[in-house]
């Protein structure tokens, strides 16, 4: 069976991120104490991140059409698994210091940087290039929220901002196509003479 097209993998990833974003948004609305009253809810986000990391390894293994893509996907997989592991330890109570949120911030920064570095075309080359740049910067900006959580813990704004980061990335991933123009341009074909 052939591997799915990249856009298919991106849409499925967007679906998981949309669900994660909504769950995090609900946590921001009700507060952490109420959210963690049921064990499965407390473990949901860390488990999704770890499972996402496993699937990213699978994608890294399948996306071998360029070294840059292989390295980028492997970097995301590692970042997701480390961040998910730390989140699991925080929920379990093995770790408690708010500074551990910096690991999540590091994961987002690494993922954002990977998006920006492995996209070799400019913003307006194609829709895919545009979205890679946009997602990269959204993730880099989104890293500010876990940093805020580490410095000023337990404020709803950090959880809400973190949730919105996932929602925005989901919307951008849903807009992804393997081959599509951006603002009527596609590479040099649609460029002004």
């Amino acid at each position, binding site marked *: 069976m052939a591997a*799915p*097209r990249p856009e*298919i993998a991106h*849409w*499925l990833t*967007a*679906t998981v991120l*949309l*669900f994660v974003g*909504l*769950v995090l*948004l*609900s946590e921001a*609305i*009700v507060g952490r*104490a*109420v*959210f963690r*009253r*049921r064990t499965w*809810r407390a473990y949901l986000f860390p488990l999704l991140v770890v499972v996402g990391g496993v699937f990213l390894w699978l994608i890294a293994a399948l996306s071998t059409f360029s070294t840059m893509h292989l390295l980028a996907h492997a970097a995301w997989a590692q970042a997701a698994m480390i961040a998910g592991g730390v989140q699991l330890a925080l929920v379990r109570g093995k770790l408690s210091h708010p500074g551990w949120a910096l690991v999540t911030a590091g994961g987002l920064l690494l993922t954002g940087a990977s998006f920006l570095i492995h996209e070799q075309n400019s913003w307006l080359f194609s829709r895919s290039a545009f979205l890679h740049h946009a997602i990269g910067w959204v993730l880099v900006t989104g890293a500010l929220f876990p940093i805020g959580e580490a410095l000023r813990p337990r404020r709803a704004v950090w959880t809400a901002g973190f949730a919105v980061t996932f929602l925005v990335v989901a919307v951008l991933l*849903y807009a992804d196509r393997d081959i599509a123009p951006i603002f009527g341009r596609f590479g040099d074909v649609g460029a002004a003479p």
Partner: protein
Amino acid sequence: MSSEIAGPLERRAERRRTVRKPARVLALEAIGPLTIVCGVVWAIAQPYRIAFLDRDGKGLYDYVAQGPLLVVLVGLAFGLLVAPGLVADLEDTDGGAQT
């Protein structure tokens, strides 16, 4: 205080408590349906994104990943699996805090 005054006042306060839903509960209950509406609007705007409606040249993966339907699915999953428990816990906590 006279019971003729206190009685109606208490009943009015009770009625207000039962009629009004807290904003947080409303927000939680709205997330799932709003997500479903987004998926439906997307499906109407781009019907060709649904493989069932535009079958030409579509493979297995196109049937698995149909953007608008996935968004509706997420909305349903949140609305049916996550929101009810959260609302119950929130109302339980708020009720406990009021008494």
